[in-house]
C-alpha cells in the first residue's frame, strides 16, 4: 500500500480488463493488418459470441467453460460464412465501402439480436467457484479477475507461439509485412485470411463471453465499445499480436485507474493520449514503419 493506494488491486483490476480488451481486439488487429480491411463489425462478433455463450448456459444448461468453447466454435463458423459470402467481395474496394458495409453489418446484427432476444442486458451468471475472493498471498482479490488474467496470459502465450513458431504464423507475419511479396512466394492469402478471420472472430466471441461480467451484454455492445477496440488496435499497431497485447494492458490499466480517480475526465484523457500517440507514431506504438 503506497500513499493509501492499493497498487496491487489497481493493477489486477486493470490488467483483467486489459486481457478482455486483448482477447477481443487481437483478431481485429490481425485481419486489418493482413488485408487492410476496415472491419467495424468486429465488436458485433464479440456480441454474438457473448450472446451465444449466455444462451448455451441458460437454454442448454452448459457450464461456463464448455459454453465458451461452443461460443468460440459457433461464432468462428458463422464468421467464415460471412467472410466467404460477403467480406471477400470488398477486399479491394475503397475504405468508404468497407466502412459502410461493416456498419450495415453491425446494424443487422444489433437488430437481429434485439428481435430474437429483446433489447435488455443479458445476465451471465458465473459459476460459484469464480464468484468469491481469492487469497493471493499478498492481497485478497476477486477470483474472476485472477482467472481472467490467467486465461489471458495463456491465450497470449499460445498466440505468440502460434505466430512465432508455426508455419501459418510465419505466413501471417510475411503477409502483414508485405502482402504482394508473400503472394508471389506462393502463400495462399485468401485461405490464410479466411482462417485468421475465423480465429479472430472466435477470439472476439470468447472475449465477449469472458468480459460480459463487466462490459455487459446488450444489443448496443458493438457500437458502445467500437472506439475502444479500435484504439487498442491503432495503438498496438496493425497485425502485431504482441503490440496489441501491450496496448490492451496499457489501456485497460489506464482506464481502470482513471475511472477510479477521475471518474469524470478519464475517457477524455485516453482519447487525447491516443490522438497524440497516433500523431507521433501513425503506425502505432509497436507497428513497423509502413510503406
Amino acid at each position, binding site marked *: 500500500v503506497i500513499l493509501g493506494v492499493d497498487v496491487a488491486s489497481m493493477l489486477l483490476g486493470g490488467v483483467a480488463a486489459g486481457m478482455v480488451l486483448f482477447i477481443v481486439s487481437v483478431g481485429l488487429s490481425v485481419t486489418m493488418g493482413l488485408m487492410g480491411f476496415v472491419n467495424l463489425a468486429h465488436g458485433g462478433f464479440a456480441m454474438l459470441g457473448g450472446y451465444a455463450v449466455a444462451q448455451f448456459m441458460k437454454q442448454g444448461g452448459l457450464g461456463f467453460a464448455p459454453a465458451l468453447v461452443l461460443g468460440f466454435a459457433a461464432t468462428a463458423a458463422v464468421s467464415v460464412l460471412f467472410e466467404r459470402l460477403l467480406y471477400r467481395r470488398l477486399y479491394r474496394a475503397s475504405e468508404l465501402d468497407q466502412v*459502410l458495409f461493416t456498419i*450495415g*453489418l453491425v446494424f443487422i446484427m444489433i437488430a437481429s439480436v434485439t*428481435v430474437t432476444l429483446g433489447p435488455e442486458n443479458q445476465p451471465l451468471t458465473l459459476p460459484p467457484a469464480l464468484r468469491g475472493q481469492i487469497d493471493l498471498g499478498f492481497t485478497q482479490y476477486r477470483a474472476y479477475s485472477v482467472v481472467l488474467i490467467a486465461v489471458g496470459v495463456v491465450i497470449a502465450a499460445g498466440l505468440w507461439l502460434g505466430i512465432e513458431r508455426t508455419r501459418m504464423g510465419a505466413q501471417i507475419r510475411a503477409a502483414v509485412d508485405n502482402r504482394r511479396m508473400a503472394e508471389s512466394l506462393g502463400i495462399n492469402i485468401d485461405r490464410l485470411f479466411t482462417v485468421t478471420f475465423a480465429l479472430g472472430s472466435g477470439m472476439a466471441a470468447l472475449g465477449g463471453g469472458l468480459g460480459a461480467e463487466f462490459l455487459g451484454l446488450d444489443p448496443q455492445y458493438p457500437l458502445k465499445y467500437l*472506439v475502444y477496440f479500435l484504439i487498442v488496435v491503432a495503438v498496438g499497431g496493425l497485425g502485431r499480436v504482441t503490440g496489441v497485447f501491450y496496448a490492451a494492458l496499457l489501456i485497460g490499466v489506464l482506464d481502470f485507474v482513471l475511472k477510479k480517480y477521475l471518474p469524470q475526465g478519464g475517457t*477524455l484523457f485516453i482519447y487525447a493520449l491516443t490522438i497524440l500517440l*497516433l500523431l507521433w507514431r*501513425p*503506425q502505432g506504438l509497436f507497428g513497423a514503419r509502413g510503406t
Partner: protein
Amino acid sequence: MTAARGDVAPQPAARALATRHRLRAWEPIPWLLAIAFYFAFPRHLGFGTELLIAILFALSLDLVLGYAGIVTLGHAAFFGTGAYTVGMLAKHGIWNEPITGLLLAAGLAAAVGVASGLVLLRTQGLTLLMLTLCTMALLEEAANLGHAYTGGFDGLDSLPIAPLFGVFEFNPLYPTTQYIYALAVLFLSFAFVRTLVYSPFGQSLAGIRENVLRMPAVGAPVRTRLVACYGLSAAIAGVAGGIWAQANAYVNLGTLGLDRAATVVIILVLGGHGRLYGAFAGAVAYMVLSHFLSKIYPTAWQLGLGFLLVFIALFARNGILGIAGASRRGGGSAGSPPGRS
C-alpha cells in the same frame, strides 16, 4: 472567348468540361419542391426543417468525402461545435441574434476544423479514420465534462433565441420561420459549394482524391488544399449545427455523437457522394423513411438500414443518383464507379 468556344465545340469531351458548371434545366426543381412543401404540408414544417438541416450537413460532408476523398467518421464534431456555440451563447445570455449566431458557429467550427485538420490530415487511411473518430469523442467527452457550461448529459434546453431580423419569432410549435430560414441558409450554402467545386480549387480537390502523388508534381499544395477544404466543410457543418440548435431551441450531446456522424455518411452515400445533389436525394430518402419507420418499427428500421448499407457497399457504389444516372444512360449495372481502383 467566342473563338475558344468554337475550338472546343467539335470535341464532346472538351465541350462537356467547358459547360459542366452551367445551370441545368432541372436544377431549380429541388428548390421549387422545397417551396411547394411549405404550402403543401404546413403541419410538417418541423420535419421539413430537420430535412433541410440534414441536407446542409450532408452537403458539408460531400465537400470532404465526395470531393477531397477524406473518409471521416467524425464530422459531427463540427455540427456539434456549431450547435454548442449557438446554445451556450444563448443560454448564458451573451448572444442570441440568430444570423450573427450562425456566423459565430461557422467561425468556431472552421477554427476547430482547421486546427484539427492541420494535425489529422498528415495521416491517411485507417489512422485518419481513427483520429477523426477520436477527435469527435474527445469533444463529446469535453462537452459532457463541462456541465457547468454545456449542461453535460442533459444538454441545454429552452434556448432564448431572438426573433429573426427582430420580427419573426422562432416558434417551436409552428416552425414556419425556421423552415424558411433554413431553406434560405441552405440555398446560400449550396450556391457557395457549387461555385467552389467547379472552381480550380474544387478541381484540385478532385485531383488529390484521384491521385495524391501526382498533385504535388503539377504544383498543387496538397496539405494546404486539404486543410482549407476541411475548414470550409467544418464551417458549413457548424452552420447546420447552429440552425439545428436555433430551430429546436435545444442542444445535447447527441449533436457530437457517433450516431450523427455515421448517419450523415449514410445519407450522403445513399444519395451519391461527390455529386452535389446526392445530399438532397440521400437526405430525402433517409429522413422520410426514418420518419415513418423508425418510430413505428425501430428494430425493423435498423435491420432494413443495415441491409441497405450492405447492398450499397456491394452493388450500388454511387447511391440513388448513380443508379438513376446508370439507368438513364441505359448502361448495365449501377456498380463500378470510374474512381474505383
